[in-house]
């Protein structure tokens, strides 16, 4: 699963006054909104809930219509709540809630800071339940939030902690390209240009060895973008 952490926050000084974002927002052609289909709470298994949340997240990443993104976020958040009501300790539900909260943060930038903090709590809970869920997803997503969100005192961003989380994701699932990409990005953000370059090259190698598909193409593209940075 590909996840983009997004947070709009307020910067501190007047020109820091601009409400800004921390995500590498994709610029994609608008897609045609499709109706949101909600799984009834009493008929879904935990995996069904989370699969739908992930699908919504992927769709939201490629969605240019803010209203559709907000609808997807609301639906995902509601499904995550239903999932948690069934099993509050399940890594899947906590992780799904974190992903849904990330979508809410993107849809409602003025509330992003509080939502990101909540997201980190859900990721901590997911990691405590199953650190390998979604190929070390809790550590990987936590890393992305920490390295992309605005830092202290404006937001929860903390590149040092983000680097540690990315290293943990790689240590748990070293062959999964998104983990390598997260580590390369964290190294870049902490000023280790050579480490970042090596990391993106490693991620590219891993991605090229992965089965064909849109995710593989995205990984390769992200690694190549990272390598192109000076």
């Amino acid at each position, binding site marked *: 699963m590909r996840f983009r952490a997004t947070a709009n926050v307020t910067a501190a000084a007047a020109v820091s006054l601009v409400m800004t974002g921390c*995500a590498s927002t994709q610029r994609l052609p608008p897609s045609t909104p499709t109706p949101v289909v909600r799984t009834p709470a009493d008929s879904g298994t935990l995996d069904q809930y989370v699969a739908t949340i992930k699908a919504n997240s992927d769709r939201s990443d490629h969605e240019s219509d803010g209203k559709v993104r907000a609808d997807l976020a609301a639906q995902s958040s509601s499904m995550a709540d239903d999932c948690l009501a069934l099993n509050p300790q399940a890594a899947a539900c906590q992780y799904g809630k974190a992903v849904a909260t990330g979508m809410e943060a993107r849809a409602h930038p003025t509330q992003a800071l509080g939502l990101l903090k909540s997201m980190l709590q859900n990721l901590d809970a997911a990691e405590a339940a199953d650190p390998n869920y979604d190929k070390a997803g809790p550590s990987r997503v936590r890393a992305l939030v920490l390295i992309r969100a605005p830092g202290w005192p*404006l937001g929860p961003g903390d590149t040092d902690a983000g680097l540690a989380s990315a290293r943990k994701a790689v240590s748990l699932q070293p062959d999964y390209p998104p983990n390598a990409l997260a580590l390369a990005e964290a190294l870049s953000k902490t000023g280790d240009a050579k480490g970042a370059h090596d990391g993106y090259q490693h991620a590219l190698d891993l991605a090229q060895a992965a089965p064909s598909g849109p995710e593989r193409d995205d990984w390769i593209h992200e690694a190549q973008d990272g390598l192109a940075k000076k």
Partner: protein
Amino acid sequence: MSILLAAAASTLVFCAPGYPGAAGDAQPFVDEFAKAAVAAAGWPAGSLSAVYDPTEQGGLAKLGGADAVLAFVPYPFYVEHAAQLHLAPIAQADVVGVGTKEKWSLVSKTGRVTGGPSLAGYTIVSVAGYSPNFVLHSALSAWQVPAGVKVEPVGQILSALRRVASGDQVAALLDQTQSAALPTLPFASDLKVVVQSPEVPVAIIAVVDNRLPAARAKSFQAGLLKLGKGAGEADKLASLKLAGFVMPALPADAPKAPTSK
């Protein structure tokens, strides 16, 4: 017609090096601001566009364009580049939670820095580190800072503060928001504010290189001073965390404005 064309080509450049945010994400907010400012100034709708650049070099490049008639920049940027860009302040921002002026604070490991001479061998890091003139001569004007002290920009102030607390030869110059939040850090007891700057403006709106005729500058200034006042006005600035604008009141050591055409 030529007046209309000239007006349409006018741009307000926002530039805030060291603070988070990407240009694309900020664009809707600066667009909204430009629209409100133009309306308040009584200028024709659409006669001013706005653009945001989070980097010093990117901001300088945009401000170098002939269409860049106004700059909205933090005071350290103004100190560093006012002379080069011929910036003439017309207003200073009133920022929610900060005000129109702020004090910057130099933070060191407790007990390490006691005065200017004790900074020998140190590196001063700051979000305003792109402006050595501001750091060394405005913010630390009360101290004689030894030659050879390095000044470096830093985007991740938390990492820098960890270095300060761990005893590296690093001191951090914090803006008012950052220094107010110091007690929230788990290692706050290892840090000490050793000197504060005089009060300086938070951010400035300035005419660039006399590119705005005096009458238009005056009408824009009048519009800025009206922003944020009256029913419903606060909402127009809320997304930028602005409360309004006041007339510029720069410190005595600030760069002098160029003579108007």
